[in-house]
């Protein structure tokens, strides 16, 4: 009897070595563990044995059955794994998604930064008149920027606000909002602007600007500096610094141009910043009292600051884009390089 157990074990060991598929294992399972299997037949003999033999034979037979079961189970899972195994080095499925244009993303990101400190977005109009684009901004009639070399005028009948034109900057938004909204104001205004510049690597007759301004009692130049420093650190990173240089704009007094420490060379001087270590990024200042007056705001009671920046230029600086035409060519090989920055 005990001999039977041993021979079954041997036989099983030989056979299990030879199996090569799940079906063959199934056959083995039926042969050794099925209802009519040899092991079952041996089990049916137990009642006829003596008391001592019953105990030892039964135990050994159970051990054998368990061994075989385990052996088969592990073989099964081995084959299953093999069957489900895939070549993980195969290329991935092509997943397509769209993206916002880099100019839109940059513009939105800039606006979001200002929105976090309480500014609201108000878009202006692209078709403007001389009053809003120039006169109200204290740009006198004889100013060079009003000439046809620097502004696109439109074939539309002139009215009491002067000739119609395509805005040459986003500053007229300032006037529109101040004319129509009660104080205090903290507004950011992005959009397209137009200038008759011949198209080349750094010029475009259409580009994007963002205007920001804040008017209230007691708004000061140091507030302007604070807001712009907050913006620069949020957008370019904590390690940048700003430099304010006095400048001239008809619509602000005092006026400044703002440079950012070059993010390529960290201020040491490189080809991007023309060895200066600084890159000009925006113009700003305290809103000129005449501009406030033109919008019906008393400059003795209220003051404000304003700033304007070129989105194209900032995007070019941040992403190392060397040709402004890339923005408007819309080649997918360009468009697909950026994702929700």
């Amino acid at each position, binding site marked *: 009897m005990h001999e039977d157990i041993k021979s079954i074990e041997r036989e099983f060991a030989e056979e299990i070595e030879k199996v090569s598929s799940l079906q063959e294992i199934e056959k083995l399972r039926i042969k050794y563990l099925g209802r009519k299997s040899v092991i079952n037949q041996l089990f049916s003999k137990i009642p006829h044995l003596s008391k001592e033999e019953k105990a030892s034979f039964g135990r050994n037979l159970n051990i054998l059955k368990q061994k075989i079961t385990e052996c088969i189970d592990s073989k099964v899972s081995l084959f299953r794994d093999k069957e489900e195994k895939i070549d993980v080095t195969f290329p991935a499925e092509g997943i397509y*998604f769209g993206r916002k244009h880099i100019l839109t993303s940059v513009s939105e990101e800039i606006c979001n930064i200002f929105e976090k400190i*309480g500014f609201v977005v108000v878009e202006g109009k692209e078709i403007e008149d001389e009053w809003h684009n120039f006169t109200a901004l204290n740009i006198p009639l004889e100013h060079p920027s009003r000439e046809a070399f620097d502004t696109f005028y439109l074939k539309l009948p002139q009215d009491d606000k002067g000739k119609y034109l395509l805005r040459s900057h986003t500053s007229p938004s300032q006037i529109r909002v101040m004319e129509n909204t009660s104080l205090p*104001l903290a507004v950011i205004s992005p959009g397209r602007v137009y200038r008759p510049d011949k198209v080349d690597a750094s010029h475009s007759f259409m580009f994007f600007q963002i205007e920001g301004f*804040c008017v209230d009692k007691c708004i*000061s130049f140091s507030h302007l500096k604070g807001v712009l420093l907050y913006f620069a650190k949020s957008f370019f990173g904590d390690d940048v610094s700003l430099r304010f*240089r006095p400048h001239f704009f008809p619509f602000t007094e005092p006026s400044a141009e703002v440079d950012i420490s070059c993010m390529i060379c960290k201020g040491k001087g490189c080809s991007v910043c023309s060895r200066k270590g600084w890159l000009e990024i925006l113009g700003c200042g305290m809103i000129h009292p005449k501009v406030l007056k033109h919008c019906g705001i008393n400059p003795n009671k209220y003051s404000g600051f304003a700033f304007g920046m070129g989105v194209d230029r900032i995007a070019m600086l941040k992403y190392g884009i060397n040709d402004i035409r890339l923005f408007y060519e819309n*080649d997918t090989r360009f468009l697909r390089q950026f994702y929700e920055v």
Partner: protein
Amino acid sequence: MKFSLNFLKEFFDTRISPQRIAHILTMGGLEIESIEQVGDDYIFTAEVTSNRYDWLSIFGIAYELAGLSGKKLKFNLPKIIRTPHLKGVRINIEDKKDCMVYIARLIKNVEIKTSPIWLKERVKNCGINTVNNVVDITNYCMLKWGNPLHAFDFDKIEGDIYIRRAKKGESFVGLDDKEYVLTEDNLVISDDKKVIALAGVMGAKSTEVDFTTKNILLEAAIFSPLRIRRSRRSVGLDTESSYRFERNVSDRLLEVASYEALRLISQICNGINAGYKKTGRNRPSFSKTISFDLSQLNRHIGEAFSSFKVERILTNFGFKVKIKNKKEFSVVPPFFRLDVRLKEDVFEEVARGWGYNRIKEELPPVKPQKTKDELYSFKQKLRSFLANLGLNEIVTYSLTSDNKLSVLGEKSFIGLDNPLRVQENALRTTLLLGMVECIQHNINQKNDNLKFFEIANIYRKDNNAIVEQPFLGCIVDEESGGFYYLKGVAQKILEFLNIKDFIFLEAKEECFLNTLRIVTKEKCIGTLGVLDRETLQKVNVKSKVSFFELDINMAYKFKKEFKYSPFSRYPVIYRDVSLGIKKDVKFMEIENIIRGCVKEFLHHYRILDIYRSKDLSEEFLAVTLRVFYQAKDRTLTSCEVDDLHFKLREKLAHREGVVLR
């Protein structure tokens, strides 16, 4: 504008290093772009802002540098000699608006030679070629004081001097040997016979000072900045002289410059002062008193300057300062600072003198705003939605050509008065043109997956009103999905807008074949279609493209807030039906039959399979549909579904042109 260190030292003998000078001036608002060493001199190239004509002179820069480095420049203006009176030459100014003042000095018996070395260096290091001693002296004085001078060969002048507008077609040969044809835009100096100078821009060859010249007439004048700009632009010239006149010159330094030139010509060229004549009157002086309170200044800048500090800064910049009660300031700007008129201008001087970068940074206490542009955030969300949907955003030019617009049958577009090129001489009335160009570019480049959208304004005239309106445009080529892809995009956008009561209405639109209008509440909010072959040809596109345009204002108006609605959890059971549909039967009719027949038990249906025969003569389209049934309140039995489906099949089979397969 170029200036040199040695020249600067004629006024301000400083030991500050050239690099430091560049930094001080840059941070004071006179941006130094480069420094170059030449011999023992340093040449600075500066960018002068348009308000500071005083920086177009060595005098002005020296004054500024002194002020910025905490010192007050000491200088003495010479006593001007205005005798003897110049006789025999009349000076006639046609319009005092074009020329306010004209000073002529006659200097006789000059010896024209090359200049002494020091003079050559001064002029050369400021970027001007040396010519001869007289011309170099006039340039030296211009550089020093900012007032351009001109020397005529007196013996070549015939008769009197006239300052007048040119006659149309009048011509003039300049010192550059080029001939210029003039218009009424040009202001000229002429004698009885000929033009002897393009006023404020360039002298004429005919009266040039050369090595044979004996007597000279020295001109010093004040011309209208605007006139000089128009005049030099009309002939395409830009000279050291016009650059200064365009930005204004000082009345007071005019006499100084003219007198110093006389003095130097006497010294260096042995000339003899033979007459002085001034025509016109100096402009009224602007240097009036500006009053302000120290607290106003501190509030504007956001600092706590002491009155002592403010007084020192302003005094160093040449202001006369009076202080009452330690805080009430009355200041008078120096005579050469015509740009300082208001107290805010004075505040800027204080801020500059203190240093912009030393002013502290603070965040303003921003109060809640009463205005908000809802449409902006709507567009922002729509952009994100479309990008997530798989379309790439593009940005195309708002300008296009009137020709292309006419091709599309547009009449109410707005043209440009002064276009750069004919390709961009009008504002677009549709996003289509720019987007089509983008598709074509990408096809040419063999790029794939061309699914684009743009959100931007379109512009047109509507009777007398000017319309500037935001639109969404989507464009796709045939390879990337074509019409039915765009229809899907449109449907998804309607889902995004939560507009449920819309219909796609078949329509006829100019330039389009296969057009649908999206109509909700009887208003058309968008259209989509395939561009017809003729239009494709006219706009130069070689591939079939589909285009979808949505009126953003309308979409915003009709969009609805999302709200939860309960849904049925009972099982959905489907049955398939295969149909042969005759080509002239619209699928819309099949859909209507399904909706009308299954009614509330219709969960949804979808097309499993469409077989379009390649053979165009094939009359039938083979379509297999899967219809999903569900009840809201219970589980439908298999029998019920069979029953519903059987009725549906019957209805479909009864439709003419539809057969069950």
